[in-house]
């Protein structure tokens, strides 16, 4: 099965596109041309790879989780260690890629949105590294929940602008970043933090994260003498870490993929972020994708214990992979995620991010169906230090 999406128009099946005000069309066209040009330019690739290796710390390890494997007594479990990236999560792969592109395009003012603060920190880090001005929009409520990340960004020289409109969370921070962007189109580069937004963002962010899957492939050969696992697991909010590890394996039909979204208090409740499980297609932040919205098309507030999954939309490519059933998307509750945090901490000595914990929690369901000669790779997308406040409030010892 050949997979070469998106189309020229930025579509993944019926999902994607460029649903943006006229002002942004020339900007997106310029961006697309610059990205395609850079992506195929050896010197750009060289600089990007060099920074990933020397600054981010790639390649990240593929760690055999022997005690976690023993815990289930079934397939072998490997962890792709994105938690070991500089700044503590995969997000920096994309921030570095986009800032190189911004410089190439001569844009010297960077803006970004952030929910949990991980993308904000990654962007602030990249901007500090390059000495570029950076403004991060963050919901006032999220700033309260993620104070440590706010302090990190400020220390890195970034201006964190509180967003008090709407629900004061990630979707509103994104609205505000887009408003800044349409006002300052000439000199401003908007570094989107996930595989969402108008074309070419979903494709661009995916390509900057595909290094996760590409490395996994090589590392599996070294570890197991085979290129593909039987199962791939990743958590999904907007979906950047998941697409990063899935994308290089999409054409390998033997690889079963699982995207784990946040059910919050339960996909059947109104405190959920399970976009694919219960959402309907619609348009938010520039692309057609599954969304949480009411019968009037008003966007609903998402809920998850993990701020990074607390988003009422999802990347258009995931909507496509869901609709075509290439990837199985399942919803994991807050409580299950907390169990996942404990399990990985106790068996492997790795405290995962709450986002990542959603993928770990699904092992309870998946592992009994696997056999000993099979291989599971789980994308350990981030480390849990940032979540210690939430974790200590919710954990039952």
């Amino acid at each position, binding site marked *: 099965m050949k997979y070469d999406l998106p189309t020229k128009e930025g579509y993944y099946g019926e999902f994607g*596109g*460029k649903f943006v005000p006229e002002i942004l*069309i020339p900007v997106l066209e310029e961006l697309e041309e610059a990205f395609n040009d850079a992506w195929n330019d050896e010197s750009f690739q060289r600089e990007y790879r060099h920074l990933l290796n020397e600054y981010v710390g790639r390649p990240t390890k593929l760690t055999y989780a022997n005690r976690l494997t023993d815990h289930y007594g079934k397939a072998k479990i490997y962890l792709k260690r994105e938690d070991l990236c500089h700044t503590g999560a995969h997000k920096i792969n994309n921030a570095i890629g986009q800032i190189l592109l911004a410089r190439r395009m001569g844009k010297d003012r960077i803006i970004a949105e952030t929910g949990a603060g991980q993308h904000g920190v990654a962007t602030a880090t990249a901007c500090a590294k390059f000495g570029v001005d950076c403004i991060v929009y963050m919901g006032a409520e999220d700033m309260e929940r993620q104070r440590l990340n706010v302090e990190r960004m400020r220390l890195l020289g970034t201006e964190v602008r509180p967003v008090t409109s*709407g629900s004061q969370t990630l979707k509103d921070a994104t609205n505000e970043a887009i408003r800044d962007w*349409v006002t300052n189109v000439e000199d401003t580069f908007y570094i989107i933090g996930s595989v969402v937004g108008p074309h070419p963002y979903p494709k661009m962010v995916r390509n900057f994260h595909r290094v996760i899957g590409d490395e996994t492939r090589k590392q599996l050969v070294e570890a197991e003498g085979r290129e593909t696992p039987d199962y791939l697991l990743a958590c999904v909010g907007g979906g950047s870490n998941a697409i990063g590890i899935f994308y290089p394996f999409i054409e390998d039909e033997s690889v079963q993929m699982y995207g784990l979204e946040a059910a919050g208090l339960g996909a059947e409740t109104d405190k959920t972020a399970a976009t694919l499980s219960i959402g309907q297609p619609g348009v938010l932040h520039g692309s057609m994708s599954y969304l949480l919205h009411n019968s009037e*098309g*008003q966007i609903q507030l998402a809920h998850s214990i993990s701020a990074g999954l607390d988003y009422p939309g999802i990347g258009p490519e995931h909507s496509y992979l869901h609709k075509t059933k290439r990837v199985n998307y399942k919803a994991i509750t807050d409580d299950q995620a907390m169990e996942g945090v404990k399990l990985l901490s106790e068996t492997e000595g790795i405290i995962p991010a709450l986002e990542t914990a959603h993928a770990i929690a699904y092992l309870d369901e998946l592992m009994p169906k696997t056999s000993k000669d099979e291989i599971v790779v789980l994308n350990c997308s981030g480390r849990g230090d940032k979540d210690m406040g939430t974790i200590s409030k919710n954990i039952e010892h």
Partner: protein
Amino acid sequence: MIETENRIAQLFERHDGSEKIMSLFLTAGYPDPQATVDLILGFEENGVDLVELGMPFSDPLADGPTIQYSSNVAIEQGITMKKILQIVEQVREKSQIPIILMGYINPVLRYGVEAFCEDACNVGVDGLIIPDIPIEESGILKKEADKHGLAIIYLVAPNTSDERMSKIDEQSEGFVYCVSVTGVTGAREGDEVAKSVQRFIDRVKKNVTRNPKMVGFGIKSHEDAQRIAADMDGFIVGSALIDTIRKHYPEEGWKDEVFAFVRRLKYGKQ
């Protein structure tokens, strides 16, 4: 579609250029649905030529604080697409003023494009302005809008190339909405718009030749409008109107204050 029956087309056909056509944007359901009906009916008596009725959306990413506010109020008070269409229906019992529905695509998609265009046509809507549908994405709307005689009005912006302006002019029906400045909706300080707008207006004149041209974004007074729209067929005011409503509502006689503002916008200080 019989184009001559469309009220927008008729308006511009009748227009002799002696004064500028004035279009006002107001948010459906702000401050409440009945007030929206009363305002539109009053507008017609106070020199308004065209009404853009905003369909509120929870995430209006091209709008400034004023329209975000009015949209939130309307949504919190339970505005729905059905109620918006009922507002138009009520206006149509007494008035033939051209009405355009303006808003983001998601509520329209959720209602169903086909049902929406049919129902909008039946209550007497004349056109649609959907800012997050650029010409590239027009496919999801065009067929049904055409079938029901709804004009789709596209926007051009200061950074739209000459070539693209002509393309937009070809696809637009009714008029072309010329966004005078980059940025979100909302009144601008001082002469901010007037200073930078002339080069854009000159390009619009050169490239938009098929449709009438209406200029909007940042206009807050008669003087602004006369300057900025000097070479246009007319002008559009939204945020400044909503700010005026917000200033006077719900004190007694608030509508008269709004109508006085509207007359000043059109005719200047009298």
